[in-house]
């Protein structure tokens, strides 16, 4: 994306959102998603990474009726419309939880820790949740 380094009206920076926490049990997943959606309007070069329990944020089949919470799971599928298309999940995190990409609501790229480490080093801004 280096050809787009200068956008009309401003800089384009590489933003990475790092999600490491399970959804529902705490609000970090939901409020992190709200940042990503608002951030999309700024037309930066955005990616999301799901590590550790963060990958539970995007598993299929969430039904929050009985805990009486809003189900924000479908919103992840809307990310594409916001041009947030690069979603990465940790290979190690998937494996120790017995999950495969078939369990997830969105298309993701699986990366191992060293690939994610490389990607992290390329960023301008890292937002952690």
């Amino acid at each position, binding site marked *: 994306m280096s050809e787009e380094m200068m956008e009309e009206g401003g800089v384009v920076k590489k933003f990475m959102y790092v999600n490491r*926490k*399970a*959804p*529902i*049990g*705490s609000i970090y997943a939901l409020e992190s998603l709200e940042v990503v959606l608002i951030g999309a309007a700024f037309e930066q070069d955005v990616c999301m990474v799901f590590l*550790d*329990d963060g990958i*539970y944020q995007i*598993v*299929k*089949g*969430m*039904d*929050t*009726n*009985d*805990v009486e*919470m809003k189900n924000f*799971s479908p919103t992840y599928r809307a990310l594409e419309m916001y041009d947030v298309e690069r979603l990465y999940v940790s290979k190690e995190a998937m494996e*120790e*939880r*017995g999950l495969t990409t078939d369990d997830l609501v969105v298309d993701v790229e699986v990366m191992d820790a060293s690939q994610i480490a490389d990607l992290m080093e390329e960023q301008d801004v890292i937002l952690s949740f």
Partner: protein
Amino acid sequence: MLHTVNKSPFERNTLETCLQHAKDGSTILLIEDGVYAATEGTRFSDTIKKAMETKTVCALLPDLKARGMHEKVIEGIKLVDYAGFVDLVEQNERVQAWL
């Protein structure tokens, strides 16, 4: 005695400490992010299966459903709703919440 565990076993040491201190015959109820420990095929599935040999392991179904985990539950774990949670509190003389 009833022990509740509300943390993911991947994130915290809560489940491990609970199991260390829960006597044979006691009941462990997994709630909130603790229900991830109730699922099949994870790094902690064998830990829970071993605990089930000497203890009763339950999980809160509304929390499993909220997380999309209700179809991955380890066989033999007893699923309860909030009313069942209340019953467990009534049936046990004391409750320790492993926070």
